[in-house]
């Protein structure tokens, strides 16, 4: 990997996926240390879940190739629900590793905010399985049910999920690309200020958890998932430049290497063997660890797919960072904080950085890129000799999962 760029994430009524991808590509071209010529790009791989539904437009590979001035270079779109751009990344790696292409642009994007919240829910539910939809499950509902099974089995509670949310907000407050660049304390302060200016009763939350326990501030969406357990509706785009190892030196003296790559499939919620784990994540992780020769303890920090707070806890267990049933304790003890021994979701995660679903897998890898190259600014991980980071991307209700390990040599 020799270059990377992403748009700001958020809800943009005046920008579409073309506009946001142009922003991301513009940042990518300036990120390449020794410069690049877009005409040298051999092919484009892009991930998108369902702009088909969100903006009634398909055939995005060709549209973006044209938008970026890359015609007639071949363009391929991948779809794997929320893991769409991690699949694009994998295809791009295969294309370069095989020697078929030398220089490949890979990315992802989604344009969600042009629809109502109800319509977005309907669109996202396309990635659930038919039985789940028949039983009136929503996405927050599926992860809510997983949370009840986890609570019952391991003794965790809503209070533990709050630790994930508070951490995500603290990290996102340091990320200029994040949709919500605010800590929970910032949100509390602004609500108190608003109440004061409007002459309303001033809330008296004693701390962040008191705020998150307040059903007015944090209403239930699907028990035990509340508003602050859920990732938002977002627009965004992100892309990276991959080149053959022997060419990397022409672009930068500080490339990242794809050390491990894993992908696996999983069953629907009802058919999983274990309601408190994602089999696809465990298998994808195994594959990436085997390829790289690294162990879970070698991964110094990671982005994981926290579409909901409970998901982050399951993932850090499934990826082997913590024992099954111990993830919530690790978060409680601060082990996954930015200043902890295993920082998780330094970007603020999907919860706060934003989750334009097709862009998420690419954006996670870009966070790893920035951290490993020491370019993460105020949220820079302070571990000495930072060398190995990873990104985990999950699609649907666990139907698709990827794990990608990047290394700075």
């Amino acid at each position, binding site marked *: 990997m020799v270059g990377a760029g992403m748009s700001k994430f958020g809800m943009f009524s005046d920008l579409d996926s073309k506009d946001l991808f142009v922003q991301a590509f513009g940042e990518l071209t300036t990120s390449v240390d020794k410069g690049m010529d877009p005409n040298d790009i051999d092919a484009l791989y892009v991930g998108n879940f369902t702009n088909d539904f969100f903006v009634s437009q398909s055939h995005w590979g060709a549209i973006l190739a044209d938008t970026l001035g890359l015609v007639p270079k071949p363009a391929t779109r991948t779809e794997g629900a929320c893991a769409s751009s991690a699949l694009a990344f994998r295809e791009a790696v295969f294309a370069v590793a095989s020697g078929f292409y030398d220089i490949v642009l890979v990315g992802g994007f989604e344009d969600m905010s042009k629809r109502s919240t109800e319509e977005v*829910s*309907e669109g996202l539910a396309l990635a659930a399985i038919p039985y789940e939809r028949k039983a009136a499950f*929503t996405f*927050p509902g*599926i992860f809510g*049910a997983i949370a009840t*099974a986890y609570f019952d089995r391991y003794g965790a509670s809503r209070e533990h999920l709050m630790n994930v949310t508070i951490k995500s907000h603290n990290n996102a407050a340091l990320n200029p690309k994040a949709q919500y660049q605010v800590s929970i304390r910032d949100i509390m302060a602004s609500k108190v200020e608003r109440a004061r200016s409007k002459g309303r009763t001033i809330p008296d939350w004693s701390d962040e958890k008191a705020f998150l326990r307040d059903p007015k501030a944090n209403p239930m969406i699907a*028990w035990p998932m509340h508003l602050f357990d859920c990732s938002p509706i977002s627009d965004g785009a992100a892309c990276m430049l991959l080149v053959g190892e022997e060419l990397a030196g022409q672009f930068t003296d500080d490339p990242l290497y794809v050390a491990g790559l894993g992908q696996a499939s999983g069953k629907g919620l009802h058919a999983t063997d274990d309601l408190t784990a994602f089999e696809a994540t465990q298998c994808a992780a195994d594959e990436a660890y085997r390829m790289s020769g690294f162990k879970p303890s070698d991964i110094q920090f990671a982005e994981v797919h926290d579409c909901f707070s409970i998901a982050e806890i399951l993932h850090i267990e499934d990826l082997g960072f913590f024992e099954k049933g111990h993830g919530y304790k690790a978060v409680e003890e601060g082990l996954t904080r930015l200043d902890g021994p295993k920082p998780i979701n330094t970007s603020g995660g999907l919860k706060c950085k934003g989750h334009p679903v097709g862009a998420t897998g690419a954006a996670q890898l870009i966070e790893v890129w920035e951290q490993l190259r020491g370019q993460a600014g105020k949220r820079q991980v302070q571990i000495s000799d930072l060398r190995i980071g990873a990104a985990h991307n999950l699609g649907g209700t666990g139907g698709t999962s990827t794990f990608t390990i990047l290394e700075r040599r």
Partner: protein
Amino acid sequence: MAQLISDHQFEQFLGEQRLMGSECSSCGSLFVPPRASCSNCHGTEMQWAEMSGKGRLAAFTCIAIGPPSMVQEGYDRNNPYCSGVVELEEGPRMVARIDGVDAKNPESIKIGTSLMMKYLDRGGDQGTVLAFAPV
């Protein structure tokens, strides 16, 4: 003789208030909802098998923001509904609506609760839907 197994036929049986799964003639694996081929041994000789309708609650959620069809049934922020994962007496798990629980008070709902299947009238012309309720 293999029987034709399909979601369409599964729904037809549900319409007759029969909960049917499929059983592999080769390895005996049981699937609810039914699979047309065995995901355990790849066998293709599948037979219909009727479930007792008894089970226990394995996971659940109480949904305040539901899809349009549930809003039509009168569910909303002030009137959430419960959906869950049910482990059937015969072994397989399935997802279904959960009735007869207090969805406004999720902490009163307990995993492991014994359930029996029932059919909910969805009102209007929406027909009936499979649900489970505490025994």
